[in-house]
Structure formats: structure tokens, C-alpha cells
């Protein structure tokens, strides 16, 4: 488990205050609610950075071809408040990501609204998808 249980339990209350507060840009300006997506793959890189954290996941299709996806998370202060830390995701983790595709047509680029960790825990991405901000 990548999250300390205490942190997660402790942040449940915080979730209520932090949940809808996410991004510095409009969700709808960059991502498309009409294009939900869900993939499972292996984390290849985490960018714990401003203005939004990002992570990258290698996904194998039915033909065995691997594509690298780029996911946007929320702003670091919001992720921190929700219990995320710099090392919450690690390279090599198998994760399932649900989110919305980029609006500008970028393939394999999306906004992560939910991330399921290897142990089955689901955490919110706290990205702009959570609020339509």
C-alpha cells in the first residue's frame, strides 16, 4: 500500500473540503466530458510538479503494442491536502486510471479523475475534472 492508512483515514474529513477544489484552469477548456476513458498499465514516470502533477503509464493493447499515456492530476497543494505525497505513486506500480481525454485531439493524453492502486485502493485525481472549474 502506497498510502499510509492513517493519512488516508485522516484525510477523509479533508476530502469533503478539498474535493471540488482543483485546478487553475478550466476543465472544459482542455478535456472532454464526452470522452471518458479507462486503462490499466504500468507507471513509467511521475512528475510531481507545478502547476499540475502528472504521471505516465505504459498500456499494452490486445496486439501487444505498448503506448505511453500522459495523465494530468490536480495542483500539488490540493493533492497534498487530500493525502497524496510525492512518493504515493511509484514507477512500476500497476494502476487503473479513469479519466477524460484531452480535447485538442492529443492521443494518449487525459485528465485522471480516479486512480486505482495495485492493492485496490481508489484515489481521486483531484484534477479539474472534479469540479468543472
Amino acid at each position, binding site marked *: 500500500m502506497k498510502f499510509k*492508512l492513517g493519512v488516508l483515514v485522516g484525510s477523509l474529513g479533508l476530502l469533503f*473540503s478539498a474535493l471540488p477544489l482543483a485546478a*487553475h484552469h478550466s476543465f472544459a477548456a482542455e478535456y472532454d466530458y464526452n470522452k471518458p476513458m479507462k486503462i490499466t498499465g504500468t507507471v513509467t514516470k511521475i512528475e510531481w510538479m507545478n502547476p499540475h502533477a502528472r504521471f505516465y503509464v505504459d498500456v499494452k493493447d490486445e496486439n501487444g503494442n505498448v503506448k505511453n499515456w500522459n495523465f494530468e492530476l490536480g495542483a500539488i497543494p490540493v493533492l497534498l491536502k487530500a493525502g497524496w505525497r510525492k512518493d504515493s505513486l511509484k514507477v512500476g506500480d500497476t494502476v487503473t486510471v479513469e479519466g477524460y481525454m484531452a480535447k485538442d485531439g492529443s492521443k494518449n493524453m487525459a485528465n485522471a479523475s480516479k486512480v486505482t492502486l495495485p492493492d485496490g485502493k481508489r484515489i481521486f485525481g483531484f484534477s479539474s475534472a472534479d469540479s468543472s472549474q
Partner: protein
Amino acid sequence: MKSLDLVPGVVCLLACAFFPANAQAPAQAKGKAVRATPPPPPPGPAGSVPRTPEGKPDLSGIWNGQRALPGQPDPEMLPWARALLEKRATTNYSDDLEARCLPGGPPRAAPYHYQVVQTPKLVTILYEGNIHSYRQFFLDSEHPKNLKPTWYGDSRAHWEGDTLVVDTIGLNDKSWIDMPGHPHTAQMHVIERYHRRDLGNLEIQNIIEDPGAYTKPWVINRVSTLEQGIEMSEYVCNENNLDPGHLDFSETSKVHMKPNGVDPPAARRPPPPPAGATPQTAQGRVDFSGLWVLQGSPNLPSDPSYQPAFQKLYAERKSQPKSDPERYCLPDGIARVNSLPYKFVQTPALIAVLPEGNTRAFRRIFLDGRDHSKQLELGDTWSGDSTGTWDGDTLVVDIVGVNDRSWLDATGKPHSDALHVTERYLRPNLGHLEVQYTLADPKAFTKPYSFRRTFTLAPASWEIQEYICMDELMGPFPSHQSQAPKQ
């Protein structure tokens, strides 16, 4: 533990965020984006209102971002303003300058933490994010005449009973009043009424008067709750901001960052400082409060003794002076200063250091006896974590937790994330501030490096001027000019 997405309240809150019963969002059309204002938070912790020694409510603390209360009426708008509001919805709010990491400006409420630092004559608001900057409310004084329009305007405050009333004018017309994009003109006059209802709940009534855009005053009631669970972090929105290239329909997407960055504003040279004795706080400590200006060059007086890899990095940076992060509106980090003034606001619990220059990224020196653990849990930052202890009349500040991206000065002197800075602050008299720095960085230096700086007190007529670096780096913004009809 259950999956978080099965917690009904969370699901409800998500839904509420998408479909709020909040009149401030523009009318929802099928297939059209609706930018909702978030639902009000659950109440903050119970308890009585803390009070200052003068008997006023003490608003100090870290507060969660202001949220509008539900069910408030729509404002009555002039046609041009209504049309612009609707246009912003149809273009998915792409022209929101907040996505360009420019300030919201009052009365817009960022969703991030903010901290109130209160003294009898000055109340300062420190914003965690967007932008990581500050506002000042000057008590019992009058607006200067001939104000130049700025993002934050000029704020004067007074107490009406237990309510702090803040009057702001001198605002530019670039900011949005809220996330749905209500516009305003430079005629806007904002009155904020801050009332700490109890320990954990701060009520803020915003009264917006703008005859250029609204037919009558518009009242927005908001609330913030006290944050007790987590320290405030540092949100540097403009670092790596790739979003402008992906924002669709946007006029402002056509605006690009100036490729070589921007030059910092020219230094203001103060007259010789006043003579007088070192001021003391009510607690008998040296009071470092004041507006301070560096004497001499902001660059380090010599080169630290570098490890080979960092010597190489230094040589590379010296050949590329335009890659200085300060030119791209990133914070100076720790140990670096520039020639613009710095204001120190001291309370028993902390000193807030408010720079005029660059990104206005404040730093806090904690005097409450804490160690570094609370801040370091959140990761490293440009400004690190500063804790202060007293050695007689000297304030000794210990700083760790910095990232390795800042330069130690404009020549590109590098450091690593192992940098540990000790600052020794001395105010030998009214007009001088002397700081002795020791930089230890075992990854980057072969031995610790020490130097000294002197600052002088600016005259009482000086105040921090608003310099928003991102405005210069990204502007001008075509869609944000001449929106209101010409008079």
C-alpha cells in the same frame, strides 16, 4: 477500508460540484460547459473567537479557500457584461487569466489555503496559490489619490465592532470576479466584511459596486473554515505551465511567453535611513518589521567552492544568463535577493517576508518553536522551511527543504536540494538590518560558504508597489482589452 469512491458523501459532493444549486453559475445549456462554484464546506471547528491584546477578534490562522454560500441571487448586469459572461461560458473559460497564472484579484476566491497575519495597523493575507502572493490591508488610513490600476488594488481597513471592513479600489479590469467569469471594469469598488463567527468559521461578505458593469451593488456571501490538519504549501502555478498550448478556443492561447524572459524592474534607491534605537516588540524582542532595501549588489561576493559537477553546471549557466529562473517569474528561492524592497511583518508567531519584486512569493519565518517536520512532510519548495530562534538580540533562522532549481544569484550559482542555510538577523539600530548567511551544501560545495548583507530601512513614504512579473512575461492579452463599451 472501503474504496473512497463508495463513500456516499464524496459522491454527492462530486455531483454537487457538477450540478450545484448555485445561482452564480451561468445558465446551463445542453452540451455547454458550466463552471460551477463549489458547494459550501462543512462547518469549521467549534470554539470561541481568539482576541488580540487590544481586544479585537484575531483573524490569524490558516483558512481554507473561500466558498460562496448557496442560493445567492444573480447580479443585475449591463448588457455588455452579460454578453461577455455568456461568451466566456461558450468558450469554456479558456481566457481565464488564472490559467496563465495571473492573480485572481479581489473579490475572486482561490480554492487554496490562505493565511491571515494580523497586527494592529496591518492585516496581511498570504495566499498559498494562484498566485502564491499576498495582499495588505492598511488599517485606519485613507486610499492614496491617483491610484494606478493594479491586480490587487489598494485596500484600507477599519473595525466595525467585531467585523473587519476592507475597502478596495484602484483595481485593473483584467481579473474575473469569480470562476464563471463575471467581468468588471476599473471602476469596481469592493468592500469585504470579515467576521470570525467562532474559532473555526470566517464569514466574508463581498459587496461589489461597479456602475460600469452592474446596475446595482452585488453581494456575495462566502465562508472559510479554519485549517488545522495541514500546513500551507507553496503553489508556483507558472512553473512548467503547459496548459496555454492545450486550451481551446482561446484568444489568450495566442499569447506566448516572451522567449528570453523579462528584465526585473529598476531598483529604487532609498535616501539614507533614519537614525534611532532598535525597536522592540511588546514581548521584549527585537522588532524586525519594516520595509528593507538591500545595500550593494544582490550577487554573492565570491564563488562558493564547488564540487566538480556543480562547477560544470555553474559554467553552463554563466554562458546562458537568459535562462535565469527569475526572468521567467519563478521565485528567487532562499539566499537570493534582488534590489527591490522586502517588507517584514513580525508577530510573536512568525515573520512574514513580503518581496516587492519578481513573483511576490512570500516566505514565512516561524517563531513558534516548531521543527521542520510539518512543512517537510509536504515536500521541498522554492522557499524551503524557515524556523527562527532567538540568540539574545539576534534572530537565528534555520532553512532546509529547498528544491534545487533556484539560483543563488543572477550569475547562475547552483545549489542542491541538500542546501542548509543559517541566517543571523541583527537590527543594530532603527535604520539597519544586517544578515550573516552560512550556506552548507555537502552535495554541491566542498565546504560551507558565508557572507553578509546589509539592508537599510526605506522612508515611511515608501510602500510596496505591485509588480506582477507574469503580466509582463505573457502580456498583453488581446481579449482583455477594451471589453467595456467606451464612455
